């Protein structure tokens, strides 16, 4: 009997004793983890997989963009009081400080059976665990004429921060004084519940100073304001009287690029100079394509204890793409929190330890109502083992009593810290 055989036999006996299934399983040292998408969810997952494994597990991050641009705070760029460069961070520290391999590419397909990922460059990569955080897909076909209007350059969404964000500001800056800016909101759930209302404030803040005869029209498919409702309504009445008009239950069905007309399911047509039409959203394209969107074909059901897809083993899904638990918003802060729960669970699983049976998530969301004052909403979500979901902790959470400049300072403090926590 040689040494190798002895070790193999002993290991088998040990495995039996420890109650292992005997199946070959990737260990922490040998596992290859691919993180797809470098937003708030993906970047945080990559970093915390390294931190929680004491830099043991091998992590590769695949992200098509050269830099990280924050969606939170990007409404300030739409309103013109901040620049996109102030919201841009480098991915460098993830490789330099944390030893993560970064590939600037996009994933064209995932084969869950072979456990491989195909990149646009043609390369194929193997994974033991895939963590995907692909954000949202804007469902252009849900509104008639929207794809054509976008193509003609008449409408744009700017719901993913980047060149569209500055382009939308340009459209508003070019609008005549006395013109109308219209923003339409799809039925919830969508990315960033208070985002459209914050944007309305930022556009109004710009118009108040530069084109005071103009109007902001909010066309909301929902019954009422979906987040911080009382606060936003108070701000609209007090800070932008006569400028912001809010129309609930207005579900956009079509848009005509030539005449800049918005059509609704029920109400009469409306016209506006600048049209910011936000269509319904679904999980990121790669999640849908891989067959992970098993909640109405739109969102990904996950096991909340480790954020593993219920459709495919060893694929963990984070952030805006998931079918959320009750009162869980689709936000950057929440995606960062998902990532930490998933990273800890993956490290525990690969180490052969019990996965934390009681994870916790928090959410904090600051909205700027002008260029300095802010209102927040916050919540804590504790895992409920009996119901296998996260539930808001009783008695916790809430909103600001009113807008304040102190919270404006905290909002920037939040941004600098979450960027450092996710990418630094």
């Amino acid at each position, binding site marked *: 009997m040689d040494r190798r055989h002895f070790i193999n036999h002993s290991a088998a006996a040990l495995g039996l004793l420890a109650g292992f299934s005997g199946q070959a399983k990737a260990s922490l040292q040998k596992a290859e983890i691919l993180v797809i998408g470098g937003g708030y969810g993906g970047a945080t997952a990559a970093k915390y997989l390294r931190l929680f494994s004491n830099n043991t597990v091998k992590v590769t991050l695949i992200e098509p963009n050269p830099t990280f641009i924050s969606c939170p705070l990007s409404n300030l760029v739409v309103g013109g009081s901040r620049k996109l460069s102030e919201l841009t961070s480098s991915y460098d520290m993830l490789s330099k400080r944390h030893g993560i391999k970064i590939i600037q590419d996009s994933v064209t397909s995932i084969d869950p059976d072979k456990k491989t990922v195909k990149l646009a460059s043609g390369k194929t990569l193997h994974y033991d665990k895939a963590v995907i955080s692909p954000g949202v897909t804007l469902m252009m076909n849900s509104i008639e004429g929207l794809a054509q209007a976008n193509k003609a350059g008449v409408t744009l969404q700017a719901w993913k921060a980047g060149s569209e964000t500055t382009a939308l500001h340009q459209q508003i800056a070019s609008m005549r004084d006395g013109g109308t800016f219209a923003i339409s909101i799809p039925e919830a759930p969508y990315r960033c519940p208070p985002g459209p209302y914050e944007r309305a404030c930022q556009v109004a803040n710009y118009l108040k100073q530069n084109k005071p005869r103009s109007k902001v029209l909010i066309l909301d498919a929902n019954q009422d304001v979906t987040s911080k409702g009382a606060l936003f309504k108070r701000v609209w009445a007090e800070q932008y009287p006569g400028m912001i008009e809010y129309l609930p239950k207005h579900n956009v069905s079509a848009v005509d690029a030539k005449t800049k007309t918005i059509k609704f399911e029920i109400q009469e047509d409306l016209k506006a100079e600048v049209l910011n039409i936000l269509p319904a959203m679904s999980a990121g394209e790669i999640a849908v394509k891989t067959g992970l969107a098993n909640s109405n074909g739109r969102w990904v059901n996950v096991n909340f204890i480790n954020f593993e897809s219920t459709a495919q083993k060893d694929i963990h899904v984070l952030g805006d793409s998931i079918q959320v638990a009750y009162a869980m918003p689709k936000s950057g802060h929440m995606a960062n929190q998902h990532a930490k729960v998933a990273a800890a669970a993956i490290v525990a699983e690969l180490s052969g330890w019990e996965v*934390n049976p009681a994870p*916790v998530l*928090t959410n904090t969301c600051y909205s700027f109502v002008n260029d300095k004052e802010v209102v927040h909403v916050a919540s*804590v979500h504790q895992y409920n083992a009996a119901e296998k979901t996260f539930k808001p*902790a009783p008695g916790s*959470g809430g909103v600001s009593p009113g807008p304040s400049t102190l919270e404006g300072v905290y909002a920037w403090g939040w941004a600098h*810290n979450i960027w450092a926590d996710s990418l630094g």
Partner: protein
Amino acid sequence: MRAMYLKLLILLALCLGLSSWSVSTFAQNLDASNLYKRSLAATCANCHGTDGQGVIDGGMPLINNLTSEQMLAQLKAFKSGAREGTIMPQLAKGYSDEQLEIIANQLGKKQ
């Protein structure tokens, strides 16, 4: 001969297995418990920095100058309402006392 060899092997594996299993399980439990504590404290990192090391002059109050005792006292004061604030009173109420204690032990300044 083969049967004897097998018996010997099983006996050896059992001894070796049991001893190393219990030792490694102990080590694993310690590591697993550390991971649990780190992941719980990581819920604070979005605003107060990874491992409590916040961005200096970033606009958010720094917490890394507090000892674990001081931090726990503040967290409990936020939870009870004795200390006012913007977000912290709302968040502290969402954690159990035991969770707050773990967080304070994890993020408090080491002496």
